[in-house]
């Protein structure tokens, strides 16, 4: 895995990812807290999936799992032909950087860096040259409509603008999957709608979109809804 490019093409019948009987539990003192139980989930390339569920149902943990920020306690997680459960920390970092784009509820931009520099961060860790990554960052900023705010700091931008920077950043390494954790949760409805429009556009361009949300509106737009309850998938309409 190390020193070899992450293979972004999918060798597994158009599946972006697959989870088989995936469990995650935390040890709290002597008690074992089961957060995810026997998750079976297959997501195909280009799907738009909404994950819903009450708080404490394991949404965030599932999202961390999909985003390779965490490893399963048991079960398998295949991401583009690679079993994530077996990978080293460095490999996980590489996968996160190359295959997954994160969009967070609280934007999570680095406050010392300006718009372009924030978008450049994922490319830096993939070893892109400075010139190349700057060009691409400017292009992405332009794409989300921030071409005139390249040198602005996050604090100088509105919430909607910050989230657009975050989306541009998530696209930096041209990932297959974009993970968004309540992307409109901190935004007014107008900016939220704008963000959803951009996400929709990405979906139409062929990205696999996984969105955790409370917003039924998003769930409607999404092609499939995955509902979590108490660490299990409650309802999962058969993927088309």
């Amino acid at each position, binding site marked *: 895995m190390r020193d070899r490019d992450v293979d972004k093409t999918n060798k597994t019948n158009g599946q972006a990812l697959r989870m088989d009987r995936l469990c995650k539990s935390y040890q709290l003192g002597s008690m074992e807290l089961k957060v995810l139980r026997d998750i079976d989930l297959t997501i195909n390339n280009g799907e738009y999936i909404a994950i819903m569920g009450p708080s404490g149902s394991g949404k965030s943990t599932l999202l961390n799992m999909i985003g390779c920020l965490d490893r399963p306690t048991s079960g398998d997680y295949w991401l583009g032909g690679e079993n994530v459960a077996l990978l080293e920390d460095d490999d996980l*970092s590489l996968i*996160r*950087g190359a295959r997954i784009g994160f969009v967070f509820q609280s934007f999570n931009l680095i406050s010392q860096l300006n718009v372009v520099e924030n978008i450049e961060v994922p490319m830096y*860790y993939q070893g892109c040259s400075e010139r190349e990554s700057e060009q691409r960052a400017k292009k992405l900023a332009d794409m989300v409509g921030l071409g005139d705010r390249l040198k602005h700091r996050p604090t100088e931008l509105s919430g909607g603008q910050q989230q657009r920077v975050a989306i541009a950043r998530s696209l930096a390494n041209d990932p297959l999957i974009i993970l968004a954790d309540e992307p409109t949760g901190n935004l007014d409805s107008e900016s939220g709608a704008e963000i959803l429009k951009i996400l929709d556009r990405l979906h139409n361009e062929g990205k696999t979109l996984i969105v955790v949300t409370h917003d039924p509106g998003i769930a409607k737009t999404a092609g499939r809804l995955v509902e979590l309850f108490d660490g299990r998938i409650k309802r999962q309409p058969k993927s088309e």
Partner: protein
Amino acid sequence: MFLFRFKRTAKLGLKSLWMHKLRSSLTTLGIIFGVSSVIAMLAIGEGASQEAQAQIARLGSQNIIIKTAKPPEEQDVSGQDESMREYGLTYADAERFRNSIPNVEVIVPSRLIPQQAWYRNRKVAIEIVGTVPWYPEITPAQIKLGRFLTSIDLHHKQSICVVDEKVVDELFLFDDPLGQDIKLQSDYYRVVGVVQSQSRGEAAEALGGGDSAEGKGQGANVGNIYIPLTTVKNRFGEISIQFSGSSGRSVERVELQEITVKVGSVDEVLPTRDTLETLLDRFHKKNDYQVIVPLELLKQAKATQRIFSIVLGSIAAISLLVGGIGIMNIMLATVSERTREIGIRRALGAKKRDIIMQFLSETLMLTLLGGILGISLGSFIPYMVQQFGKMPTVITGESLLLAFGISAGIGVIFGLYPAYRAANMDPIESLRHE
């Protein structure tokens, strides 16, 4: 690849250091003081050391110096106030050295008499050195003008003299000393040569042998006038009269104040010293001589100075350590302040290694900056000490390298732990951190 990566990491580090200018400069201050005190302390120590060593080296490392020493006062043998005391080195001793020790290259007997020298209406305290033509062989002092004493001078007991530069400075001012007459006691001596000052007094002082006989009666730092040994014997005799306190006067008879023996090589110095002492011991009932081996003193001085330097260096090193701990403290604070940023970077593909490099490079930049400024300040302090404290200082290349190495080392050592902590934070936890 690595270099290019390093450049960008450094840029990133500089940026975040620049964001906290006050914090960064205060942190650097600790290192600056640490490094500069290491350099200053070592420079002062080294200066003192070289000064002492130079003084001793002037006595010659291949030399063995035997000095007449006044034996301990015997309590009134005859009850008389005025008694002739006879002690010290003799011509016979010099002769015996020549005959019985084969590896002796040069033997220089000397008479040392404190006197006042007159030239026209000026007078100055000097020390007469009654000696032999081959005296220059035991000293590094160069002949500056004219010539030194010759065997003809010795044979004919000429009234001539060679003066050192100190005497020239004090007595002749702007006159050409060659051919002038100097008055010592009641006689005139013509100056035939000028030699470099070699400050015998200072050197002797450094040896702690300052109380040997009447040689240094006039105090340490006086000029020397060299006169043929035979002439001195003729004019000044061997008897000196001293007025000592309540007991009135005492008369002493001393043939030679000093015999300097030079051996062929440094290795022969110590064995020859032993032979000399055995020989002297046999012929001198009273303990009326003192053997000085500059080589040994040189070694001792070096050892002492080394300890001195180590002590000074350690004190300075402690302040460096404190500076280092200050840096670590700040870096730990920085890491916890930037927990969220670390989480973001990890989520976006940063490996642990990348995070370590990021924080380590910040610490390194702080300490190296501190090191460079500290070296400048540390070089300036000895300069001031030299200017205003009249103390010699020497900044060696090694001390600069050492200080720079230490500051870099501190950067790595005290930077590693905060960086390691940053890298090992759980990305999920850090993302949630407010």
